[in-house]
C-alpha cells in the first residue's frame, strides 16, 4: 500500500499494538530540560528504576535561565533550584547534560539540529510542545507531558494513538522580504489554532523545497500552533547538506549509507491523507498577529478584522486585552518592546537577517530590544561574523542563549499593557509577562519595528 512519509517513520517504530488502544512507539531521541523533567525523575526514583537508555536522552537548561551573566549563579532561587535539580538528576541517572557554561548549551530545539542529533527518519520527543521543530528533517517529533517523559526515561517508548494525516502544499515564489515565519502565520490564520488537532502535518510543494533547513524548522516549529501534533518535511539534498559534518552526525561511509536510506523517506505516489490544503506563496505578505492566539494574524499592512455586529465574545476579549479596535490599522502603531529569539527564530540565519537590516541604522530610543541567540553555538557564530558589533552600533545588545521572553520564566518580562513585537510563537494572554501584549512577526518585521519604533514593513527599509 502506498504510504506517506509519516506512515513510513511511524510504522517502523511500532513495538506493540494494544488491542483497542494505543500503540507502543519506540523513541530514538529524547530531549529534556529543567522545567518538565524533575517530576519524571522523581517518578523513576519512587519506582526504584534506572533510565532505560541513558545515551538516547540529551539534556539542556534553557527555559529558566538568565540571558545575562550566565557565568554567575542564577539569582532567582526557584529557577536556580530547578536548574540544580536537572544537574543532580542527570548526574545520578547518567544523562548527558549541556548545561549553563557548556559550549553546546541552548534552546533544546536549536541545539538538537545544530549538533546533528536530529536526523531523518527518527522518532523524537521532548516535554515541550515545540518539539515539532525537528520534523523539518523528516523525523517524527512531538511534545509530550511529564508522565510521558517518565515513560520514555523508563522504557524508551511511549503509548500513543496514531494521529491522522494532513498535507499542506505551498507552491510559488515568495515575494522578497517574506520569510517562512510569514508562511506559517499565514497558514495558521487560515486553518485556525484547532484546525490541525489530531493530525500530523506534512508540508510540501516547491516553496517548501526552496527553503533552507532553518526556514523549514520555523514552519514545523509552529505546526503545533494550529493544533497539530507535529509537522514534517521530506528530507532532500538541503537536509543532507545541513547534517553533514555536524558533531553527532554519522561520518564518512556511514553517512553515505544513511543518506541512501533517507532517500526512501518520502510520500509514495497515491498515498492518502485525511485532510489536504494548498496555498499559493505569492498571496503571502509579511504577517503580524493582533489577538491572543497565533491564528489571529493579518498581513502587516492590513486592518484588524471588523466583524461589525458579529464579533464573538472571544474576539472582543482578545481585542480588549490587546487594547486594539476592530478595523484599526497596525502599521505605524507605536510599540514598546521587541523580542528577537525563541526556538522559532533565534538561529544564525535569523540573526544575519536582523544584522543586515539594522546595519548603519539606529534603534528607536524608546524601544527596549532583546536579541537572544538560540544557543551558545549560534552566539559564537554571530560573534565570529561580527554580527554583535553591527547590532551594538545600531543600539542593540546580543544576549546569552535561552528561551527568555518567549515564556518569561526568567527576568525577561514585558510589563503589563506594553506592546511587544516578538519573533516567538505564542501571543497568549500573559505569555511574555502578566498583562503583556504580544504581536508575533518575522525577524525582519521585528527588526524594522525596533528601528522605527512603530510597527513597520521591513520591505521599506530594504534595498
Amino acid at each position, binding site marked *: 500500500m502506498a504510504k506517506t512519509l509519516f506512515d513510513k517513520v511511524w510504522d517502523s517504530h511500532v513495538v506493540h499494538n494494544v488491542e*483497542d488502544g494505543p500503540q507502543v512507539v519506540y523513541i530514538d531521541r529524547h530531549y529534556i530540560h529543567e522545567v518538565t523533567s524533575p517530576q519524571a525523575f522523581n517518578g523513576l526514583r519512587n519506582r526504584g528504576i534506572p533510565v532505560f537508555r541513558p545515551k538516547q536522552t540529551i539534556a539542556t537548561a534553557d527555559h529558566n535561565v538568565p540571558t545575562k551573566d550566565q557565568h554567575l549563579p542564577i539569582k532567582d532561587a526557584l529557577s536556580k533550584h530547578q536548574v540544580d535539580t536537572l544537574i543532580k538528576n542527570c548526574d545520578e541517572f547518567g544523562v548527558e547534560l549541556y548545561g549553563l557554561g557548556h559550549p553546546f548549551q541552548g534552546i533544546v530545539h536549536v541545539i538538537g539540529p545544530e549538533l546533528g542529533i536530529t536526523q531523518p527518519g527518527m522518532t523524537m520527543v521532548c516535554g515541550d510542545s515545540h518539539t515539532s521543530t525537528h520534523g523539518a528533517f523528516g523525523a517524527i517529533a512531538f511534545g509530550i507531558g511529564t508522565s510521558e517523559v517518565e515513560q520514555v526515561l523508563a522504557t524508551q517508548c511511549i*503509548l500513543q494513538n496514531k494521529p491522522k494525516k494532513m498535507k499542506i502544499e505551498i507552491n510559488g515564489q515568495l515575494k522578497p522580504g517574506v520569510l517562512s515565519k510569514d508562511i506559517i502565520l499565514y497558514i495558521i490564520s487560515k486553518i485556525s*489554532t484547532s484546525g490541525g488537532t489530531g493530525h500530523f502535518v506534512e508540508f510540501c510543494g516547491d516553496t517548501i523545497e526552496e527553503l533552507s533547513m532553518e526556514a523549514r524548522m520555523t514552519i514545523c516549529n509552529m505546526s503545533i500552533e494550529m493544533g497539530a501534533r507535529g509537522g514534517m518535511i521530506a528530507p532532500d539534498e538541503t537536509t543532507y547538506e545541513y547534517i553533514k559534518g555536524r558533531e553527532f552526525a554519522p561520518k564518512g561511509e556511514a553517512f553515505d549509507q544513511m543518506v541512501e536510506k533517507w532517500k526512501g523517506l518520502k510520500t509514495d505516489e497515491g498515498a492518502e491523507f485525511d485532510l489536504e490544503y494548498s496555498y499559493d506563496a505569492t498571496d503571502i505578505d509579511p504577517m503580524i498577529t493582533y489577538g491572543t492566539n497565533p491564528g489571529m494574524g493579518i498581513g502587516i499592512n492590513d486592518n484588524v478584522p471588523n466583524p461589525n455586529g458579529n464579533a*464573538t465574545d*472571544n474576539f472582543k476579549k482578545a481585542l480588549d486585552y490587546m487594547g486594539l479596535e476592530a478595523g484599526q490599522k497596525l502599521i505605524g502603531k507605536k510599540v514598546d518592546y521587541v523580542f528577537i529569539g525563541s526556538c522559532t527564530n533565534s538561529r544564525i540565519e535569523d540573526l544575519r537577517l536582523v544584522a543586515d537590516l539594522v546595519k548603519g541604522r539606529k534603534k528607536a530610543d524608546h524601544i527596549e530590544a532583546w536579541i537572544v541567540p538560540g544557543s551558545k553555538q549560534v552566539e559564537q557564530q554571530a560573534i565570529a561574523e561580527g554580527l554583535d558589533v553591527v547590532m551594538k552600533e545600531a543600539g542593540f545588545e546580543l544576549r546569552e542563549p535561552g528561551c527568555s521572553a518567549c515564556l518569561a520564566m526568567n527576568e525577561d518580562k514585558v510589563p503589563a499593557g506594553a506592546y511587544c513585537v516578538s519573533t516567538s510563537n505564542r501571543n497568549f494572554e500573559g505569555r511574555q509577562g*502578566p498583562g503583556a501584549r504580544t504581536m508575533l512577526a518575522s525577524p525582519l518585521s521585528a527588526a524594522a519595528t525596533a528601528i522605527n519604533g512603530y510597527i513597520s514593513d521591513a520591505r521599506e527599509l530594504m534595498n
Partner: protein
Amino acid sequence: MEKFINITSSIYPLPVEDIDTDQIIPARFLKATDRKGFGDNLFRDWRYDKNDQPNPDFVLNNPKYGGTVLVAGKNFGCGSSREHAAWAIYDSGLRVVVSSFFADIFKGNALNNGLLPVQVSEEFLQKIFKAVEVDPKQEVAVDLVNQTIAIAGTDDAESFEITAYKKHCMTNGFDDIDFLISKADEIKEYETKELVF
C-alpha cells in the same frame, strides 16, 4: 494514579473558548520540582487581580458555584504541553473537565493523571451552560463505565468516547508506565532489528 469513581456533582461553568495552558497555569508558576501545590495558581491571572486580590467575578471565586466538574468552551487546553495544567486542575479538587473539544496533549496529560476529559457536542455543552445559568447548583452525572454524561434530573444526556485501554486505566488507577515496563522484552527485541522505512 487514583481510581476514577463515577461522579454526580455541581459544576464550575467557564464558557470561554481556546483556553490555553498558559491561562490554566502561567509559566512563572512552573518552577516547582514536584507535582503537588499547583492548584493554588490554577487560572492565576483570571482568579486574582494585579494586587493578588481574588477577583470576585471569576467563577472559581464565586460561592454560587462548586463541585468537582469544570465545564469550559471549545478547544480547551491548547498551547504548551505542560502537564502542570492537568496537575493544577486535579490539585484543585476537580476530577472532570467537560468541553466540546480538547487539544491533544492536554487530553493525554489529563488521562495520565486521573482527570477525565469528557468531550460533548457543542449543543450539549450549551445546554449545560444554560442549565447552570438557570440554577447554579445544577448537577451533572458522569458515568465512565457506561461512557455517559447527563444533566442530572433531566433526560438530557450524551455519550462520550474513550478508548477501552484508557477506560481500563482510569477505572483501575493504572498508569501507562506500569504497562510499558511489562513490555520490556518486546522493546529489547525491537532494538535488535534493523530499521527499514
